[in-house]
């Protein structure tokens, strides 16, 4: 920068340079100013030159007990969608806090439905769950994100992403203002999540990260994020609850949440070769149907919203 005081773009100062150079300098200044992310000049943009070459998904259901069947169905619906659209089991980390399909209360053993018409068995024949039951804890979740495991932990339970990865992180359960409840006995706070994402960014564990949260007051969970390259969608704003969609009188509990239901409705129309964009996903959320406002945080995200989520 020609002002001679170092590389920080400061406010324009009265300059002694001849006016001739100003028009030439101005677009240069503007260009440089926009290329720096709003957070800090030193942290700069996403790793330069890293090409997107793999996709990962981390799907977490944090609730246990039979009446939280819908959270399991939410997560399994996303699991099925993500598998259908091309991410293999080896690149999916599925964490389910309880067993619904083979639960003694389930009238339909080995089957989980997200709709009362029972058309689609989400559990299928080929499900692979990486973290089950009591293993779904805040500690294990943060270990998965940051990659700091004990040496004995097998590869199928690790998130082996690199700087070319696009990661989808989906969390569902009961939550509140700046927290998400795990297993009815501990909480994940928003600053813990922000810290884990920051560690991930520093260790180049993702190129772009999409966080989707379907809980009450979901948007507060990512209020503390400050790493670039992260896009976050929550099912409701602070002070709002997220509601379930409908009750299945055969199974006896609600089977899916509204936000996930509409997200799925969007994805069911797609296949592996579609070119839909995130923009159209956001536009498909209708607050009156959701009974809450789906909130998305885009300020940390650099590209405009026209890319396919799983490609």
């Amino acid at each position: 920068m020609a002002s001679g005081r170092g590389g920080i773009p400061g406010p324009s100062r009265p300059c002694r340079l001849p006016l001739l150079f100003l028009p030439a300098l101005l677009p240069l200044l503007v260009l440089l100013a926009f290329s720096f992310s709003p957070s800090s000049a030193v942290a700069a943009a996403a790793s330069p030159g890293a090409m997107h070459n793999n996709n990962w998904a981390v799907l977490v259901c944090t609730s246990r007990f039979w009446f939280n069947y819908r959270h399991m169905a939410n997560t399994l619906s996303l699991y099925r969608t993500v598998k259908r659209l091309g991410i293999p089991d080896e690149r999916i980390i599925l964490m389910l806090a309880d067993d619904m399909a083979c639960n003694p209360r389930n009238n339909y053993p080995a089957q989980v439905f997200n709709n009362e018409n029972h058309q689609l068995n989400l559990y299928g024949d080929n499900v692979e769950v990486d973290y089950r039951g009591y293993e779904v804890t805040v500690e294990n979740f943060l270990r998965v994100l940051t990659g700091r495991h004990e040496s004995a932990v097998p590869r199928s339970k690790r998130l082996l992403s690199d700087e070319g990865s696009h990661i989808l992180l989906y969390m569902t359960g009961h939550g509140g203002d700046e927290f998400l409840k795990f297993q009815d006995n501990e909480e994940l706070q928003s600053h813990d999540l922000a810290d884990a994402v920051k560690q991930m960014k520093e260790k180049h564990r993702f190129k772009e990260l999409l966080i989707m949260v379907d809980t009450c007051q979901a948007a507060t969970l990512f209020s503390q994020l400050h790493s670039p390259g992260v896009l976050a969608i929550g099912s409701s704003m602070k002070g709002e609850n997220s509601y379930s969609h409908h009750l299945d009188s055969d199974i006896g509990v609600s089977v899916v949440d509204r936000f996930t239901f509409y997200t799925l409705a969007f994805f069911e129309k797609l296949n592996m070769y579609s070119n839909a964009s995130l923009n159209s996903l956001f536009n498909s959320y209708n607050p009156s149907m959701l009974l809450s406002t789906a909130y998305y945080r885009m300020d940390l995200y650099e590209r405009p919203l026209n890319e396919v989520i799983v490609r």
Partner: protein
Amino acid sequence: MAPPLSPPALRRLLLLVLSLLITSVAAENVEEFTEELLLRPLPDRKALAHFHFRSSAPPSAAPSRHHHHFPKAIAQLVHQFHIKELELSFTQGRWNYEQWGGYDPMSTNYAKPPGVELWATFDLPLGEIDATWKNLTHTLSGLFCASINFLESSTAFSSPRWGFKLNEGNLRYGALPREAVCTENLTPWLKLLPCRDKAGIASLLYRPSVYKGYYHSQKLKLASSKSFGIILDQTLTVVLQPDSVRGKQLHSADGQLQPSWSMKDLFNRKLSGKCLVSKSSRVFFEIEKNIVDKVDKSGTEASWTNEIFVLSSAPDRVLKEINNMDGHSSSICEYDVSNYNEDAPLDVGVTWKLPLIWSCTPAPYHANRFLMGSGNERGSISLSFISTNMHKQLFDVSNDCSIKAVVFQVVPWYVKGFLHIDEYPPDANQGFDIPSALVTFPEFNSSRSYPETDSLFVSPLLRTFKEDGVVKSYTEVLLVPLTTPDFSMPYNVITFTCTVLALYFGSLLNALRRRTGEEERELKKAGNPTMLICLPVYDAHISCVI
């Protein structure tokens, strides 16, 4: 001097010798895979289906050998952890020893306790075994999508020297009674088979049927040595209630018929061919000896079709048990799946013509375990043995009432103590599970031999029936409600303490800093008799004018 062989003859001889050499070498180094299914009707209107898959890999010096259909994950597991024998079972449901028998190879080998049970013997110096066990539990947890890694801590596993199996200290045993078993455990288990669940006998596994059963247990058994290589046995034992309409018929005179069922009723599909890489693929239908007994008493010979029941199709072979002291022996009807294909699928089943009630031979004693009393101090675990008089029938020893039984049970230490607050599981108020106890009767042997009609090939399933198996029973899992601390107490304590401290320090500071009488004293000092007039001014603060 004999004339030398002409060059073409020499070449031919050389070729012959070479080919013999190659085939002999190849025969030893070939991986084999066999699949079998055993079906048996049970006395309480249910049906037992037992799938048995055996894969064997020949011994090799280097662990980096190319595999054809032996699963590479298992070969690597055996080499990395130096495993001699390993058995891992995932079970849901309880084997009903009263109704389904306790004295046959099926209940001895394949009746497992609920949850996950893992035991392994290692070929390592004794000091390294615990660390290897820990790594093994983690690896198996990743391989089979279960929380087997909870067996890593020393409170969860044990190293019995003679209670479980006789060994020199290199055996480790662990069980997780509350582990759920569902499709995600079956998926990787099926992926170890060469044909997965796409072809062959495993294609029958319709998941909703399997998990709707009364008992299902999938087991993986490994044995490895330098002489025979690695043998992997995968078995799945399911007890199902056949759903057929035909099962609800009432016979005119004698009461309710047993349900007539076939493979289509049990699994919703028929068998349309074998797995092409399998060396043999067979379906067995077992007719127990008590059924044979009753059929014989009614006059006809118990073959696949008689007055009481008839099988859906003629078997390829009928094998009768040999060497049975009792006189009557069970028989097995064998069907070879390679004779069937998509156009003519195999659907083995039984149709009952007359009602029949029979019972399966029980173990010498029924072993049950239950809780008595209440609480940590006055509670106890009781084991009860009820004699079935079976041993008297078998051995005809009327005076000798003593039987040797070995009981092996693992009780966690915290049943009598307290855990640290963060060691409690999230739903601690449900209680703690104590794994099943194993009761062995070493004097009784449950093996059965069947004639080996094919000298080149012996069915692995029948071979396991022939192996020496002592009679074993597992008791129930216990759920013990232990005293749990009030988990909200830390929060309560912090709140109360902070409130008390705030009140204390607040009032202390207030008392120290308050200047209530100060202004009046100041004024008195100044000695002014005039009054203090304090007036509110426009911007709502009081200014005092002297």
